[in-house]
């Protein structure tokens, strides 16, 4: 993997591939034209071979089936088949109280479980009008960004592994362990945390967490620089990723492709900035944007996002306010566990919340937040009482899987592997 070439060479090659008067930031028309140039539209009069890629193909990262119509190695048609991991989360939600739904959301996107908890709690709090105390908002921001780091590091390792190397995958997994160790310290679990609560979080930061977290976020930017040294200027990766899978901003809107894929197409859309929640309006960070809309730029966007995540966590640790980490709202949120054993009112509240559940008003809300893979929306309709009447999770991977035909028709099969990994589909998130 030490086949690195210096960045000047790459930039020179990049300049060669386009005409000299092309501005460095292509606009939509130029991208559209570049997309048409890189895709091969063959006459489909020849022999079309239909093969099934998946559901157990290693590059699908789960059970995602793509039925391909191939002309030689060029994809003429692609039909995504999903549902092999369907667990009926939305139906289950209608039979559980709001507190009991939080563990179900863990299993949607298990690589960034806290982000999913957070999305559901934001929607439920909007419905119930619960004010989240400042300390809880900061802890949520820290945990959310940690889950973004864990997700992107895993994505990077798996993406590069799909393109043919094994070692880098192990390097990424080693670094992801540091983040998962932080989660273990914070929540007691490594993958499915169920850490967010309606009105706050389950636990306060444990002793020693801050120092350890600071160590990790000092360490990770160095590792990210190392990843870039290994991958960004790697000749093989550059050739496999540059100008592959071009997806312009118009395509992204039409297919509801969000997150890093949209930002790699030059759109500075980030719900953390546009519709702020938790403590994102109190910290300073930049939205990572790239302009070439290909696999390579999606990699660059995620690298930038990881750096910004470290920045956000550092600011949150610096400005962490005191006070409660769970809202003092007897009607809607669980009491602090320590109080349950000491205070009779808290014990009554605990019994009430566990056996009856939070009493939500009638109404319907839709709340979207920026999870590592894109925009996740949660729709809740309540008819009053402790259980929602309808819950819908608008998960990003569902739409990213759907967009696979538009992303990859005209590309070749080896590029399909790179493209599928680059939009970051997790099948738990996709199949619900």
């Amino acid at each position: 993997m030490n086949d690195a070439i210096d960045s000047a060479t790459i930039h020179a090659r990049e300049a060669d591939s386009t005409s000299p008067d092309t501005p460095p930031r292509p606009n939509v028309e130029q991208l559209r034209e570049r997309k048409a140039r890189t895709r091969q539209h063959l006459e489909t009069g020849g022999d079309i071979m239909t093969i099934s890629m998946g559901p157990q193909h290693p590059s699908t990262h789960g059970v995602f089936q793509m039925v391909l119509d191939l002309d030689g190695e060029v994809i003429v048609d692609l039909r995504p088949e999903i549902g092999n991991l369907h667990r009926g989360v939305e139906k289950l939600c209608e039979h559980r109280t709001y507190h009991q739904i939080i563990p179900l959301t863990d299993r949607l996107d298990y690589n960034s479980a806290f982000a999913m908890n957070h999305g559901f709690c934001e929607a439920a709090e909007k419905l119930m009008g619960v004010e989240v105390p400042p300390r809880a908002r900061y802890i949520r921001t820290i945990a959310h960004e940690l889950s973004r780091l864990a997700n992107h590091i895993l994505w990077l390792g798996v993406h590069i592994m799909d393109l043919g190397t094994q070692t880098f995958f192990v390097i990424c997994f080693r670094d992801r362990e540091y983040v998962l160790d932080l989660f273990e310290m914070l929540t007691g679990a490594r993958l499915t945390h169920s850490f967010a609560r309606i009105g706050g979080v389950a636990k306060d930061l444990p002793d020693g967490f801050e120092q350890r977290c600071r160590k990790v976020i000092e360490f990770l930017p160095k590792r990210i620089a190392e990843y870039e040294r290994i991958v960004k200027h790697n000749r093989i990766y550059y050739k496999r990723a540059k100008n592959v899978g071009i997806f312009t901003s118009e395509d992204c809107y039409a297919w509801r492709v969000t997150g890093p894929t949209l930002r790699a197409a030059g759109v500075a859309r980030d719900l953390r900035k546009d519709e702020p929640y938790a403590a994102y309006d109190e910290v300073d960070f930049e939205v990572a944007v790239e302009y070439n809309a290909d696999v390579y730029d999606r990699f660059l966007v995620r690298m930038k996002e990881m750096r910004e995540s470290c920045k956000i966590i550092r600011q949150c640790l610096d400005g962490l306010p005191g006070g409660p980490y769970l809202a003092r709202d007897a009607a809607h949120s669980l009491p602090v566990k320590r109080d349950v054993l000491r205070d009779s009112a808290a014990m009554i509240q605990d019994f009430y919340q566990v056996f009856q559940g939070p009493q939500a008003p009638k109404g319907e809300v839709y709340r979207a937040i920026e999870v590592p893979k894109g925009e996740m929306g949660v729709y809740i309709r309540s008819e009053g009482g402790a259980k929602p009447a309808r819950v819908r999770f608008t998960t990003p991977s569902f739409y990213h899987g759907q967009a696979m035909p538009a992303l990859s028709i005209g590309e070749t099969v080896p590029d399909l592997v790179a493209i599928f990994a680059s939009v970051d589909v997790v099948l738990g998130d996709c199949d619900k």
Partner: protein
Amino acid sequence: MSSARFVRPSPPAGSSAKKDRTTARTATSLAPTLATAAAKLRRRFGARLLEEKESFGELTFVIAPGDWMRVLAFCKTAPDLAFDQLDCLMGDHLPERADTPFAVLAHLTSHVHGHRLRVKTFLAEGGPLPTVTGLWPSAGFDERETWEMFGIVFQDHPDLRRLLTAEDFRGFPLRKDFPLEGNVGGRVRTDLRGKI
């Protein structure tokens, strides 16, 4: 019983204070661009917008199924509305509404103006609705899911098959009369020969 204290969640004074806070937030959070968009919609469709509701800072328009395509196409193309992304299209089942127990909701987002809108229509069982895949291709999976979960047919949909459940699944699982534990017993029956 002590739990009686908690059956009514908050005392009247507290609840009114909370309600005030909620309405204040609602009043401020409706973006000016969205107010313009709503005025434009009202001017264009008038009495065809059966109901307008503003709650939790979100704007909802209820329309008749016959106007579904026309209103959504206007939402997408009119420059003051410019809803270029269909965030989520979903079904719902409200058994208490006797003649039109099904609902289809479209959550729209505009990248140009940054506002959101919900458009809703009520349908009879299976009541057909035109597909909006021509406006937003991302509606394809959403409509397939809505069909398999609620039995709402989308006319002219390019590929209206079951999406998440097995090919030979019977029934519409997200309807309220469908039991949580399913209706096919403990065995998963799959016979996919010749189906893909």
